[in-house]
């Protein structure tokens, strides 16, 4: 019983964080670990969290866009993996994708539903009632928590036996395929992050990083140091070359040229 409350509290925190993006309780590596802690299966929680983290690391809310929501995905998948259903981590990774899309829909929906609440803040402002502004904002924080906690509670009502039977009713061929897919899904996240940053002049750094990483002796920390070193060198040399031209962003030409280059691939 206490484990159920523990999971629901994690769901509440993850729901808040999925929108405010501060303490990062909604990132799978944190959320799944906490669910694992609550259910007493820390090891499987961490294993799922780490695997799922690699899949979700490219999901980010930029500007007014809403990305798939890792919060609902991480908490519910972790409940199915670390909880009584004991699904394998690969199944958790796959199940997390539809859950993330449901969470994304709920985030969008709440951004609309919250409009009347914000309208009340206008009324409070006209009266100079600061206490009411604070209270309204806290209500919206609670709503964000409930956004994930309520669906989590509903999904937790599904008996563990059903989940298990459902999973093992899948033919062996498909289950093996799911395992392979779970390992492959990370490339989409990698591509999203790369796509966000890539300009023509940054691609060489990508390939240098790739080539160095295929040598298994270099740790990720060592690679990070090389990366930082290269960045400092590049910026120093660049500002030496072009003293009058500081801080110009990537131009449209860069993008077009990149498209052409990739077309050739």
């Amino acid at each position, binding site marked *: 019983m206490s484990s159920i409350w523990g999971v629901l509290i994690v769901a509440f925190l993850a729901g808040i964080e999925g929108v405010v993006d501060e303490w990062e309780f909604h990132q799978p590596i944190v959320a799944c670990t906490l669910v694992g802690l609550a259910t007493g299966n820390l090891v499987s929680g961490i294993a799922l969290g*780490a695997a799922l983290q690699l899949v979700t690391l490219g999901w980010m809310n930029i500007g007014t866009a809403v990305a798939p929501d890792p919060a609902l995905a991480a908490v519910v998948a972790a409940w199915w993996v670390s909880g009584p259903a004991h699904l394998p981590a690969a199944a958790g990774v796959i199940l997390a994708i539809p859950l993330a899309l449901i969470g994304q829909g709920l985030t969008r929906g709440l951004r609309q539903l919250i409009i009347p609440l914000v309208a009340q803040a206008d009324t409070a402002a006209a009266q100079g009632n*600061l206490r009411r502004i604070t209270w309204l904002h806290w209500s919206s924080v609670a709503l964000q928590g409930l956004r994930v906690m309520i669906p989590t509670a509903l999904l937790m009502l599904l008996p563990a036996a059903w989940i298990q039977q459902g999973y093992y009713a899948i033919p062996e061929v498909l289950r093996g395929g799911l395992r392979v*897919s779970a390992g*492959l899904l990370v490339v989409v996240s990698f*591509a999203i992050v*790369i796509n966000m*940053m890539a300009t023509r002049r940054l691609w060489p*750094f*990508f390939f240098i990083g790739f080539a160095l990483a295929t040598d298994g002796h270099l740790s990720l920390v060592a690679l990070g140091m090389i990366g930082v070193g290269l960045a400092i060198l590049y910026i120093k040399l660049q500002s030496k070359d072009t003293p009058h031209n500081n801080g110009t962003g990537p131009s449209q030409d860069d993008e077009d040229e990149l498209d052409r280059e*990739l077309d050739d691939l």
Partner: protein
Amino acid sequence: MIYKKGVSEVENEQKLRTLTLSDQLLVFSHSGLEQAAWNYPRLQNLGFCYLMVPAIRRLYPEKEARILATQRHLELFNTMPYMQSLITGVTLSLEEDHANGKGVSDNDIRALKISMMGSLAGVADPVWWGTLRPILSAFAASLALSGFGIVGPLVFFIGWNVARLTFRWATQRWGYLQGLKVVTFLSSGVLQKLTLGASIVGMFVMGAIVPRWTRLKFAPIIASSQHASLSLQSMLDQLLPGLVPLMLTLVCVWLLRHHVKPLWLLLGVFILGLGGYWLGLLR
């Protein structure tokens, strides 16, 4: 005469409204919840107003001015949440001048918020969401997967939050102390350099992560005779380990550039995995 003037000066100074350190700390503690009331079409408006509450309370005891200040900060606002601390700091300094009648109009404050929010978000998104979080979380995940267990999640949680809280407080404080000088500093292009540097590190590390953390194994044997067997995986490893994940990633980038939705990519990769296993090519 001279003595009297001195007294009135002291009185004037006592009347000056200043934000105490505890006011600033209160604003800082509120600033982390800014996005909770994210709504269309005014985005983070209630969140920003909420975090200004301690400052409004201190600076505007009169009801009339308090109402105006509250309404001013309920207007549309949206930026990258961590950069908001810098905007908050500068806004606090301007509000203080406004409250003391030092020639800052309410429109100046509006204009400042609008001009800072877009440019700062564009600079900060690639650094925090595009570089720091993917790298730190991938590093933490790799620690967790290679037998360090709980150390992985702890490294991510502590590392991220120490960086975030330090950055938030430092920029808010700096913005408050420097006021409008911050705007001059920002136009010098320092931030663009920082973003470029972060993007370089980001691209480099993403390149490194692709072969290390994509789990893709080909079936051991594609052809065998009495004398020898031919393994596709070992052949590919001879050529270049991680070549197939690299191609797959590049294809995904290319498709994203052509406005294919990430959801379709996830679906495509999913089917690729299922099909590859079904054909006996992947395992």
